[in-house]
């Protein structure tokens, strides 16, 4: 593995050096003396970043790309064979047999469909709520942002206490006041994922609220004054002034929330464990790679997931492109 790394590193480095030499000799041939000196300095300064980017970004990507076509078994790393598309074939078989991967895709889709709109709408509502001068707006901002800085494992634990089965659970004990019998929220396949969606939206919306707030600050105040003079009500102002002004912020939030949602793992892992009704793609990837030791299969899932997320992100960008 180290030898391969060195070969890749040397190839990459030679390519970088070749590019530098080509650029500098071209500049020299054109007698651009100033550019030769400035470019040389720039390349030298760039070098540490390029090396770091190669080691910590490029190399893992290249390796995981390569492993997707191997039978890499974590307990036997010295014996890796190329098996071409066997991993992908196995994954598609598992989907067709409605195995765990099928559930992972289904649950991830459910989560994304649930959490993306919920989190964005919550963030927008909170943003409109706190973006008013008056007493308490700063306190509310801090309160709404607080869940973002709390560790996911801590919030998952807190919500486990809220959703605990039996009469001891906070939610169950509150509902019992209205005569609702205790429910096992996280074991019931119908309620487990909605609970995780609500928890995730609650935790994440504070961050999006801040981004929306910065977007709101860019909307000119005179537009609101003009619309008031034209007799616009609250809804007209929101729909015709605020929303168009937040469009680019919205696209950014939509894409980041979507990507984040596709990668969900911690909440189901801590709250339910590896279960059919809550397993997600990232969790499946972790389980297969680290618990069952099949790194090859796991990286094949990662590759498919990257292609899928990349594809959807491109579609989103195109769909919301400024005309």
């Amino acid at each position: 593995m180290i030898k391969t790394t060195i070969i890749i590193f040397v190839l990459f480095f030679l390519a970088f050096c070749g590019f530098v030499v080509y650029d500098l000799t071209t500049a020299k041939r054109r007698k651009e003396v100033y550019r030769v000196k400035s470019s040389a300095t720039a390349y030298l300064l760039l070098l540490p970043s390029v090396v770091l980017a190669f080691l910590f970004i490029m190399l893992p990507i290249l390796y995981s790309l390569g492993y997707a076509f191997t039978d890499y078994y974590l307990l036997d790393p010295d014996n890796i064979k190329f098996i071409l598309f066997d991993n992908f074939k196995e994954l598609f078989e598992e989907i067709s047999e409605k195995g765990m991967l099928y559930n992972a895709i289904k649950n991830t889709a459910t989560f994304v469909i649930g959490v993306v709109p919920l989190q964005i709408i919550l963030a927008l509502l909170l943003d409109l709520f706190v973006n008013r001068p008056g007493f308490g707006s700063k306190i509310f901002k801090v309160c709404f942002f607080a869940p973002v800085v709390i560790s996911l494992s801590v919030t998952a634990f807190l919500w486990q206490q809220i959703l605990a089965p039996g009469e001891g659970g906070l939610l169950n004990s509150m509902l019992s006041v209205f005569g609702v019998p205790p429910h096992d929220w996280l074991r019931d396949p119908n309620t487990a994922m909605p609970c995780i969606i609500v928890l995730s939206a609650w935790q994440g919306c504070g961050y999006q609220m801040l981004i929306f707030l910065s977007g709101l600050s860019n909307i000119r105040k005179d537009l609101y004054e003009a619309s008031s003079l034209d007799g616009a009500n609250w809804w007209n102002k929101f729909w015709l002034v605020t929303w168009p002004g937040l469009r680019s912020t919205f696209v950014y939030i939509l894409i980041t929330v979507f990507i984040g949602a596709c990668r969900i793992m911690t909440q189901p892992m801590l709250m339910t464990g590896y279960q059919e009704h809550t397993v997600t793609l990232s969790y499946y990837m972790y389980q297969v790679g680290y618990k069952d030791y099949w790194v090859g299969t796991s990286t094949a899932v990662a590759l498919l997931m990257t292609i899928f997320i990349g594809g959807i992100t491109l579609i989103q960008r195109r769909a919301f492109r400024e005309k």
Partner: protein
Amino acid sequence: MKRFLISIISIILLLALSLSMTACGGDNGGGEGDDFEIDENGNVVTIVKIMFHVDKKSTEGQAYQKRINAFNAEYKDKGIKAQAIFKARTTGASGYETELTNNKIEGTLADIITFDAPNTAAYANSGLLYDISSLIPAEDQEKFFSLNKYNGKLYGLPIQESSAGFFYNKNIFRAAGIDVSAYTAENPWTFEQFKDVCARLKAHGVTAVDMRLDATKDETAPYLLYPFIYAAGGSFVSEDGLTAEGYYNSAATQKGFQFIKDLVNAGYTSNSIGPTDFFTGKVGMYLSSGWTIPELDNKYRENFGSRDGWGILPYPKDVTAASATGSWSYAITNNHHADKTAAVELLKFMTSAESSRAITDATGMIPARKDAVKDYAAGSPEYTLLKQLELSGKERPVTVAYPTFSTTFNQIIYRLNNTNLTDLLNSQARELQKEIDKVKDR
């Protein structure tokens, strides 16, 4: 300009060269240079590295360190020195296992590692462990309650043994008028008698038993609950560990799981029992291992009045008696050291009767060696666990796909009440079979 260009390229090449050389150094496994040292008399001392799964500052970690110090003192003149590495399981057993596999990839695997016994087959099959069958004499092997064997070969020796049972609150039992003195490790109660006691406890107004049905995110539930399946005459895989279909989903296996399900349906147990409910007198019985004894002796002594306020009942039997066994073990690894002489010396020292006693004194578990076991008073909690281990201890399934077994078992317990048991067992048997085939075909 030309000189400038040459100097830039020279710097780049020099950097590349130095980086490559640093990387090449990694080929030695990062440990080659640390394999030997020269002592003050100029003699070569072989370094043997041993990796533990606990924190150095924990009671167990300190016990290991003391034994390592004792080894170094004893072997000072024999040219061997042990070096302990502590990698605490901060993220559960899987985190430690990830560390092990990373070390293997990096070539920095310690000479001896500690590992969870059910992983013997998977580790041995992958070549992680060294076959020590010929290095440990047969008479020494006989001194252990259990051995880490796979395909007839010895791959590890246990650090300590474990046995689980039903801790019960004697005060609650007395108040409910329940006499369980006849149920001993030598004469375990039956499934029906167990249900009867649960019914009487329920009638008394307490939750009958905490079966730890909530502990399905790690190895706790499989470890505590698998004996019920063996007791009902079921199993999980064939003798050779290669077939799951027909075993995991057999009628007898289903009967074992059904027994647990019946307890839930009857309201004797549930997954919503609080972690301290037994210790605070809300639950009559609590399924747990020997590690609960120090907790009851120290943390909750007041709650039970005295040590006489609680006891341990054995696992109930049906077709046969079966109880939980297995703990962590030592193994010599297949690392870059071809000569295992020094590692074998350390392994023998760490598994000696003295070491066994020293470590179990710290952990409260049962010593791995028969000759290290203390004379417990008949009827005492420790006696019940020890006798049960001797008479009905049955290890978890030996299979190369143990991690998948553990996952599928947890899923069964998790879904016990929401799914049809027959369908669930069929799908879990298929899942395990698929994984076994995949590992074997590799």
